[in-house]
């Protein structure tokens, strides 16, 4: 029995959604406080970040990675450990004018910065970040 077109579409949408959502979402929210300041709030599937590694201009990427292979190893080690953590407030800096908070919650690394100029919130799935770093490290040529 042939599958109707709408069924194929639904199946395609489902598969695409599963592929895109499997690594979670990256959230970036930047609000500038000055008059006419921008407000950028976007959600990106973390899978896009892993694809981005392969879509970036390879020549420039390899050159950049050549110089930072050691840093990638450190980032990978840190992310692997962060991945194991329960929910926790890692850093809290509070003053009357500024607040910086770094938290781990449900496998996401949350960074919140609030100062008189802007409010920034970034949420990133640690697992996806680790995968990106591992991909970059694998692609990095020896120094």
């Amino acid at each position: 029995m042939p599958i109707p077109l709408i069924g194929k579409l639904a199946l395609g949408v489902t598969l695409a959604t599963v592929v895109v959502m499997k690594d979670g979402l990256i959230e970036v929210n930047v609000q500038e406080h000055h008059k006419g300041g921008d407000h950028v709030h976007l959600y990106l599937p973390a899978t896009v970040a892993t694809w981005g590694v392969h879509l970036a201009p390879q020549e420039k990427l390899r050159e950049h990675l050549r110089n930072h292979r050691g840093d990638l190893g450190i980032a990978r080690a840190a992310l692997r450990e962060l991945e194991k953590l329960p929910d926790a407030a890692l850093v809290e800096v509070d003053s009357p004018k500024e607040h910086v908070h770094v938290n781990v919650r449900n496998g996401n690394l949350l960074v919140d910065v609030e100062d008189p100029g802007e409010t920034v919130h970034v949420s990133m799935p640690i697992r996806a970040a680790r995968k990106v770093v591992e991909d970059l490290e694998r692609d990095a040529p020896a120094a």
Partner: protein
Amino acid sequence: MPASQTKRTVWLAALAIAATALLLAVLLRAAPVAQAAQAAPGATAPAQTSSNSSAERWLHVAVDCKNENGERVRVNLPISLARTVLASIQKGKLDHGIVHVENARMNDVDVRALLKAVKAAQDGEYVTVEGKDTNVRVRKQGNMFLIHVEDKTGKHIKLDRHHESSGPENVDIRVPIEVADALFSGAPDELNVGAALDLLSRHDHLELVSVQDSENNVRVWIDTKTTQD
């Protein structure tokens, strides 16, 4: 197209959409749960994270400034994270948890011999310096080195527009002898920070550093909690 076939197509489409919705709902609900479970095998709920029963030790730093800005800093770091990151760094004077010290002679004091001697000695106060501005006391108590420094000169700080404060500075440092031993366990020009961290992580609760003066309160300690409450 006959009516029966159209009807069947509509039913199939509706079934496909329903299945899609169900699959998405299951996947989207399961993903965060699976991630959380993978990230924290021992954590069942956020409320329980303040009393972590696992073996993980956390290094805590608390800084409270009493000046007009009143900054407050809290850092909570699992020792395993610090240990792993330190072990992965091979840059400059850092080499997989070992710090190379250029002037390792430390004014010709053989720290290792000193440590060995103090370790074998009885409890007591080994160094007492009483000066006009500073008092320093170093003593051994059980398996601990206790260092107390009192700076009597104090600092003047501005609390707000109308008030100033001044007072002595007290620094207390507690170091387990085995940790100091591990720190100096390598070559003469090396500090084995990784080994020291390993031994620190065996302590359930340990007050390491306390600094109190008119400007700041600083506290560094280790325990099994993820928070400072």
